[in-house]
């Protein structure tokens, strides 16, 4: 009898340990997938290279990105165009593309790869993650390949590298300048609700929200299941309206700013008040940012807030929605210290290089990065109406979608302020993001959130 009991105990221990090793094994599984996924993702490119005579021992460069294979995002389309061209011209280099369309999954995989020092040859990363990878010496500084080609290096806009530097070295090459907080609104719905023009002040915005609600539409569609949307696409800009950029620089440089400072709390309060007022859909924490666009495309919502990367998606929306869409940024707030003609933005992310591949494939990697960041790429991107990180003299504006023209007009008057998650540490961002979900459903107060984030901030420093 005794032995039987031990068997049972043994079995349960076994079940527990197995389960736990499964969790721990998540990362391992991901890496295995990559080899099988890449040939499929890379179909066109390999065909392109197949047409020319294959060279002996081509160098394989692995390129991991967050653009789904069928992505209509302008950046994704342009990168793939340039890669196809690059493959045709360089049969001795094979770019193996691995695409993970879901941003959260992408960064999870990236961090897992980084933990095992197995970062791909080229990958896309936000500045904050890069800083951490750099500290852990899993990503290679790119100063060397940048200064080897000064024409390329100096071609970038002067501020383009800001988000991608760490400890005096450059770890990433930018590919676009994006705003993470742009309001897309349907002017037809606005007009039907009796709102003549987009609100200029916070009070007007609140008034507009009431009017839209009375019309029976959701004022602002928000899909914050993946937790970054509320922070990256709304709070980064809204917070800056209240605090001004100096406050955030103080946070980054650890020179006295606190998350509990009244200005930041005011920003959080304004955000929560908007939610209390019913500005968002009821299921804001269980749908994602694609579903928030779906709400808007179906005409069920009057606005949604996302980065400039959504322009491509809106342009391919149902015609009556696409034609009526206008872009704006958050209105000015009372007593705010920030510039009202500003929104969170910058290069945000860039191409970075894993330290393993860099050692023996440096030249091939540099060539690939140049092809997908240099002048030709920037031109292709600009012709689709996307803001670029590279100085380009003239390009063909005829094919640019009307919405992109509107955005270009808007962004030319804007100042870019820091994107929170490009600078704050991943641990801090994960606390902030989770608590924002709670804030928007009144589960915690702005003061509590500020306190918790501040505690995490102090723990790290």
């Amino acid at each position: 009898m005794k032995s039987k009991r031990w068997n049972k105990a043994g079995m349960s221990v076994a079940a527990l340990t197995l389960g736990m090793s499964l969790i721990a094994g998540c990362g391992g599984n991901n890496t295995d997938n990559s080899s099988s996924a890449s040939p499929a993702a890379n179909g066109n490119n390999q065909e392109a290279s197949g047409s020319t005579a294959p060279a002996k021992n081509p160098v394989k460069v692995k390129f991991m990105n967050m653009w789904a294979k069928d992505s209509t995002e302008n950046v994704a389309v342009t990168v793939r165009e340039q890669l196809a061209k690059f493959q045709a011209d360089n049969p001795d280099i094979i770019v193996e593309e691995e695409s993970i369309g879901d941003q959260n999954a992408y960064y999870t995989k990236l961090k897992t790869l980084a933990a095992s020092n197995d970062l791909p040859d080229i990958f896309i990363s936000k500045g904050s993650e890069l800083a951490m990878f750099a500290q852990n010496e899993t990503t290679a500084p790119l100063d060397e390949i940048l200064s080897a080609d000064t024409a390329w290096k100096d071609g970038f806009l002067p501020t383009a590298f800001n988000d991608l530097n760490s400890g005096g070295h450059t770890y990433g090459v930018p590919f676009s300048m994006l705003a993470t907080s742009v309001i897309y609104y349907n002017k037809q719905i606005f007009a039907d609700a009796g709102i003549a023009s987009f609100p200029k002040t916070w009070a007007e915005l609140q008034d507009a929200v009431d009017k839209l609600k009375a019309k029976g539409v959701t004022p602002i569609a928000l899909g914050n299941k993946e937790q970054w949307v509320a922070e990256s696409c709304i709070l980064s800009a809204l917070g800056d309206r209240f605090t001004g950029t100096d406050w955030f620089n103080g946070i980054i440089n650890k020179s006295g700013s606190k998350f509990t400072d009244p200005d930041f709390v005011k920003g959080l309060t304004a955000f929560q008040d908007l939610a209390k007022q019913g500005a968002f859909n009821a299921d804001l924490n269980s749908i994602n940012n694609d579903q928030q666009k779906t709400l808007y495309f179906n005409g069920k919502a009057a606005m949604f807030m996302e980065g400039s990367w959504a322009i491509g998606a809106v342009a391919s929306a149902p015609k009556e929605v696409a034609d009526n869409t206008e872009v704006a940024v958050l209105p000015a707030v009372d007593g705010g210290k920030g510039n009202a003609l500003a929104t969170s933005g910058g290069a945000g992310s860039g191409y970075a290089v894993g330290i393993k591949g860099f050692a023996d494939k440096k030249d091939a990697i540099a060539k690939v990065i140049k092809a997908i960041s240099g002048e030709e790429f920037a031109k292709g991107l600009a012709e689709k109406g996307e803001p670029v990180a590279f100085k380009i003299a003239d390009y063909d504006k005829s094919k640019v979608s009307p919405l992109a023209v509107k955005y270009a007009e808007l962004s030319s008057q804007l100042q870019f302020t820091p994107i929170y998650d490009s600078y704050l540490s991943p641990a801090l961002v994960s606390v902030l993001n989770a608590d924002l979900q709670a804030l928007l459903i009144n589960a915690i107060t702005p003061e509590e959130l500020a306190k918790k984030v501040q505690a995490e901030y102090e723990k790290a420093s």
Partner: protein
Amino acid sequence: MSRSPSMKISRFGLFGLLAPSVAIYTFIMIIPLALSFYYSLTDWTGGPTKNFIGLDNYKLLLKDSLFWHSFKNNLIILALTLVIQMGLAFLLTTFFMSKALRLKEFHRTVIFFPVVLSAVVVGFVWQMIYSHDYGILNAVLRSVGLESSIRAWLDDPKIVLYSVTLPLIWQYLGIPLMIFVSAVHGISKDIYETSELDGCTGFKKAIYITFPLIYDTIKVVMMLSISSNMLVFSHIYVMTGGGPGTSSMVLAQYAYKTSFGSMQLGYGSAVTIGMFIVSFGIILLFKRLAEVKN
């Protein structure tokens, strides 16, 4: 048991036969667990440097409200599952035993079917069921005039935990049911016949005959249920990601999030070990409570 000569195996042969399973067990359980424990004593964040910091992570863990909050959620899910799932399974077992039930094979297949589905698929399906605007649940409520009970099922911190437990109960109902049914089949028919002669029928039969006779099986099933429920992850990860805020966060997800979300691999390992300890504690406690004094 008397040993016949043909059953004799040399000591060497015995260890030889044991070796493969011992090796597998060592490599997929003992070593990862030991490694995890080692990492949990460091401040590892994914780089080449791992500083040994002793038990600091565990000190932090004891005071980590989120860890205990997740543990509490695990316990709630566990309690609900044990009560509702086991209760339902036992009830269904007695139905299966009765002669009134037709199409037994069919019912069994239908109830067992979700068990073979992937947890991720189940998560996605239930996410759609719960969807506020398009979900079938709210549509049904609307059509029967219960507009007042329409909710954003996965967005309300007060009910989200129950919303994510329901799919778990539904999906794995088939397992205890299968085991119970086969255990009941093992009970000799004579006992039932005798008891019927004595006037014990229906519900009484279930309580006084079936239940005590399959008590040992029930204990094993409950133990399996405890260990799998302490590790629940995929459903919740897919449906809510632990949200809103942290209201549906469970231990496994917290370990995952700390390790791979915020890259605190050292602390994440401490969470995993902590999870192992509390789960093991619960199992031991349960064994203690469930023991019947002869």
